[in-house]
């Protein structure tokens, strides 16, 4: 059993409803199920006009942050409503969507894969085999527009982030850190270990109804492809 959800003020225009503690090293999947269940409940309530003043909400690994216009709703009433919804304990698991994402693991696109292999006592081929055998789950999007946090990385490939982040990680970089995987939608600084490159566009602002490719609860596999797949994009 889990402790009851807790509600915190994040300033005067947001609440964070927490389903799992901040310190957990690995957030269990049923916490995510409660996060997604709560988010689904919010969507239903809002569609029914039951959340005046609420602008948007952000599901994370273990919590949902609800942003609202404090001049259009009463702080205490909204807090009560969110707590009541959280206490219902709804769960939603899988989005039902599965993705197979092409990834090139060739040397120049995978600058850290050798170091991962050495640190984990595996051959490079064994690392790739484990990465492509893994079914990841999208836990949340954040850090950058469309950036997916993917859970499910085997413990045998667990590595800390780089001590000094790279000033520039190229867009499309496929990366691991801790027990997570990720794909960088944009060039950015970054501290994850780069193990491949994908040609897939993870975020496109012109797709107005779904600019991000992934949503929380999606299942993702990485499929090894040659470098020509990158050139073709």
């Amino acid at each position: 059993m889990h402790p009851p959800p807790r509600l915190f003020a994040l300033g005067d225009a947001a609440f964070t409803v927490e389903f799992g503690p901040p310190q957990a090293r690995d957030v269990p999947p049923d916490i995510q199920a409660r996060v997604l269940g709560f988010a689904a409940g919010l969507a239903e309530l809002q569609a029914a006009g039951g959340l005046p003043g609420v602008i948007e909400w952000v599901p994370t690994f273990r919590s949902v942050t609800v942003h609202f216009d404090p001049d259009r709703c009463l702080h205490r009433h909204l807090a009560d409503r969110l707590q009541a919804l959280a206490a219902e304990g709804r769960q939603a698991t899988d989005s039902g969507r599965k993705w197979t994402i092409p990834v090139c693991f060739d040397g120049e696109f995978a600058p850290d894969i050798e170091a991962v292999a050495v640190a984990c006592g595996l051959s490079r081929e064994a690392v790739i085999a484990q990465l492509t055998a893994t079914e990841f789950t999208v836990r949340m999007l954040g850090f950058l527009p469309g950036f997916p946090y993917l859970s499910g990385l085997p413990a045998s490939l667990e590595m800390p982030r780089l001590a000094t982040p790279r000033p520039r990680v190229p867009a499309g970089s496929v990366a691991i850190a801790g027990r997570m995987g990720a794909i960088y939608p944009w060039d950015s600084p970054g501290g994850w270990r780069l193990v491949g490159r994908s040609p897939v566009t993870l975020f496109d602002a012109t797709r107005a109804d779904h600019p991000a490719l992934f949503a929380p609860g999606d299942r993702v596999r990485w499929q090894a492809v040659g470098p020509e797949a990158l050139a073709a994009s």
Partner: protein
Amino acid sequence: MSAGLEIRSPGLGVSIQDDGRHGHRHIGVPLSGALDPVFLAAANGLLGNPAGAAGLEVLLAGPLLQALDAPVRIALAGTMGARHLTVAGAGRAVPAWSTLRLQPGEQLQVGSPCGVGYIAVEGGLLTPPMLGSRSTYARAGLIHVVTTLPCRAPLGFGERQNVALGHEDGPIRVIPGPQDDHFTAAALDHFYTGPFRVTRQRDRMGLRLAGPALAHNQRGADIVSDGVTPGAIQVPADGQPILLLADCQTVGGYPKIATVIRADLPRLAHLQPGDEIRFRAVDADEAAAARAALARRLSDWLAGARPAQAGGDPDTAVLLAANLAGAAVRGDDPHLWPD
């Protein structure tokens, strides 16, 4: 006949901002929008625009703008002067907190603001919105690289001017948490005593403060990332706070000791390296009263605007006054980025 402004020189730290890109934070898209929405609203208000209409935000040095083949009405807000240049090359000083009309071919050279300044145009800038907002977020391609800024021709209002609109001083008001229970009692005491000095590491994402080290308790300096918002004050392991601003990421992995209330966010936009600030804890009721007081100050100020005198204000002392040469804005500080 097309109305618009040609960008003859882009200035430094200039971006298009409106009231923000709402509704996309769940897919990692920052809120963005004006660092000081009150000053943007003031510039817009002088022109009869909605408060959050898109304008230019100036952080370091203003642009040189030229009207295309229709007149354009412009308003300036901030501690920032400008020079209005006729086609013949004659110039006159234009103070902030007033409107002016650029005739076709005329230019406006905007100076450097002390803090942040805004240039609004009648009807708002009409660049195509992206995901419901015209705000620039260059890190993720939410930007139009343009040489002209479309707008509409003026409807015929007279020019207006007003006194400078200031912000309150005193401690920055915060609501404690959500992770204030990650800090020692001494750290919380230090946080509410201060002072904290603004460092040079600052941009539209956030600014780093230096002050008494804020020690974490046994719960530690890393959390499983959860939602953040502009105003949230993250404290990483080094104990020095990071104050998040409009372009901040949507989630963060450091404990948040407190979060600045909405009414005090605009004040953060004007902090300069070396400035000292303190924090004071308030509750939701006091935050609501502060929002109401701020809204009242803005509406009183707008009601106090009066027709501009012919010839404008010749006071050149307000021109190009602020020298921000030491205040470089960094756009690539990896320390603000948890991943």
